[in-house]
């Protein structure tokens, strides 16, 4: 019984997703689906919270190992993914009817994708890692292609699908090599074999490179980021929100779990012959390329896509710092993911709110003067952009602060300086949107965005805004939760 309790977040989301799929098939009324899926995801997150509070000692969770590992790390991600998914469903509840895309399968896809991401974050074996990854990715491809009448949507989905499957195949070959070298597919078993000396062979290094390619692709690090702007721009905006929030969190959960558990031996984690220098290079490239490209974008959605790549770069800085300051750096990555989730979901939500069918907010010009014409729509957008830029007292400031401090404490001063310079460059393009919203007037006769009205979108924005301010004003409670989650992930 207590095992079922420990697994309840996964069970709730699975059963809820199946029931909603049935309801979608038999009901004429699509209105309730958004509420239903939000409730399922909220319940999943609440159950994860309950398991966290009550504890799961003696729940025989060991019997699930190595396939699924229920620890505070996975519970943290259950809550985070359910939060991100719930915000995205609320946005979808407003966006899809407004843009005549109101087909119910979007919610089922979103729920099953969340389930895949949750399995991915709890996976302790290469097999479950692979299954969770595929469940998550297939749903994300479908959601990208959801606007079936739009060439952009199909094209973004095609690029995402082709490159995603290619990267998955490369990573899977790495898994096969790891199995060949160590004789086991469990992450703990691989770690044991690595510590026993398997990590010195050329095969292990080759396998590590292949696995790293897949991991970096999934979190859209440069040079494997080419799909991200296209897929994010082509997808309907709630799907973009979901991908940049939940799918990216799932990718980082997989990256942390695989790198720390399977490649956590001194040899693979060393600066001389392991993954940290490769990841540090990717982090520098990711931040720099994404921030420089984001400033040149005319489409706000594409700018936010590049911004999400840049944030992956900051997160990678934290992942590199795990090499020397294990718990502190892991906790800073987890906390950053939380602040990034609420800020990004809010920013995309505000972008949705700013436009209605026929008067969408696409380019910066569309947003010109919206701060004066529609202050209620512009104000939340401004708040979330400031949070993404890392201005105090918003959540984004403390997210960056803890990552930079973890990097400093582990001696990566040069990496911290590069990340700091990048966050200054990043502030430029966030503030540019604010300049357009508050200090420009639209050219005469130019099309301007008109805000839509939707209770769902407003609710999502309200929740995100409260969390952004709460995390910015008193981050200590959630940081404590992140530290406990990081401690759960044994090195």
């Amino acid at each position, binding site marked *: 019984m207590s095992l079922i309790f420990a697994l309840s977040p996964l069970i709730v989301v699975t059963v809820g997703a199946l029931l909603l799929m049935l309801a979608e098939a038999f009901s004429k009324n699509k209105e309730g689906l958004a509420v239903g899926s939000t409730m399922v995801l909220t319940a999943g997150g609440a159950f994860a919270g309950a398991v966290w509070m009550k504890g799961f000692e003696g729940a025989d969770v060991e019997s699930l190992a190595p396939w699924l590992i229920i620890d505070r790390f996975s519970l943290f991600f259950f809550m985070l993914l359910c939060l991100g998914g719930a915000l995205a469903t609320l946005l979808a509840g407003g966006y899809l009817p407004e843009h005549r895309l109101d087909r119910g399968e979007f919610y089922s896809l979103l729920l099953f994708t969340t389930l895949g991401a949750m399995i991915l974050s709890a996976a302790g074996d*290469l*097999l479950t890692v*692979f*299954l969770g990854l*595929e469940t998550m990715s*297939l749903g994300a*491809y*479908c959601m990208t*292609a959801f606007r*079936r*009448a*739009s*060439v*952009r949507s*199909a*094209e*973004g*989905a*095609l*690029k995402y*699908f*082709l490159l995603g*499957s*290619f990267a*998955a*195949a*490369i990573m*899977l*070959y790495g*898994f*096969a*090599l790891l*199995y*060949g070298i160590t*004789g*086991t*597919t469990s992450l703990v078993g691989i770690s044991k074999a690595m510590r026993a000396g398997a990590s010195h062979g050329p095969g292990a290094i080759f396998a590590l490179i292949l696995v790293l390619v897949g991991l970096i692709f999934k979190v859209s690090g440069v040079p494997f980021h080419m799909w991200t*702007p*296209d897929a994010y*721009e*082509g997808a309907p905006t709630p799907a973009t929100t979901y991908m940049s929030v939940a799918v990216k969190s799932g990718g980082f959960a997989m990256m942390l779990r695989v790198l720390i558990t399977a490649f956590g031996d001194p040899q693979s984690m060393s600066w001389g012959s392991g993954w940290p220098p490769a990841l540090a290079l990717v982090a520098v490239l990711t931040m720099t390329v994404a921030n420089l*490209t984001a400033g*040149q*974008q005319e489409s706000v959605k*594409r700018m936010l896509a590049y911004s999400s790549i840049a944030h992956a770069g900051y997160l990678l800085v934290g992942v590199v710092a795990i090499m020397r300051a294990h718990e502190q750096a892991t906790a800073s990555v987890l906390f950053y993911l939380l602040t990034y989730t609420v800020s990004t979901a809010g920013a995309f939500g505000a972008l949705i709110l700013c436009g209605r069918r026929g008067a969408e907010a696409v380019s910066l010009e569309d947003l010109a003067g919206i701060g004066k014409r529609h202050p209620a729509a512009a104000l939340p957008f401004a708040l979330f952009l400031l949070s993404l830029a890392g201005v105090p007292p918003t959540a984004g400031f403390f997210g960056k602060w803890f990552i930079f401090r973890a990097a400093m404490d582990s001696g990566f001063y040069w990496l911290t300086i590069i990340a700091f310079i990048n966050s200054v460059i990043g502030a430029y393009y966030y503030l540019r949107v604010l300049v357009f919203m508050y200090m420009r007037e639209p050219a005469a006769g130019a099309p301007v965005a008109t805000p839509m009205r939707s209770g769902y979108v407003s609710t999502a924005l309200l929740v995100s805004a409260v969390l952004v301010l709460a995390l910015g004003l008193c981050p200590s409670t959630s940081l404590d939760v992140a530290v406990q989650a990081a401690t759960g992930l044994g090195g």
Partner: protein
Amino acid sequence: MIPLEAYITLSAFLFVIGGFGFLIRRNVIVTLLSIEVMLNAVNLAFVAFNRAHAADANAVGAHTGQVFAFFGIAAAAAETAVGLAIVLSMFRLKRSVRTDEADLLKN
């Protein structure tokens, strides 16, 4: 008995052929086929490694590689289904299955 090296060499060849096919060919259907070849190379490697590792067929985890290969086949089938659906929706709109004609989204 055929040695493990032979299987792994074949698997590596298949993987490289698939990878090159993915990078060089511009027809989406052929690109999908290339990914399929890569995934089958992975399955072959898993099954070959399984045979090399499992001395005792009754031991726990003696069939891990084979089980992995089955899951790989199932996931590849699901992936192809989604991929063909995306290609189909692209073809309906553009009347083309060439990747170099998918050039609407760019910086």
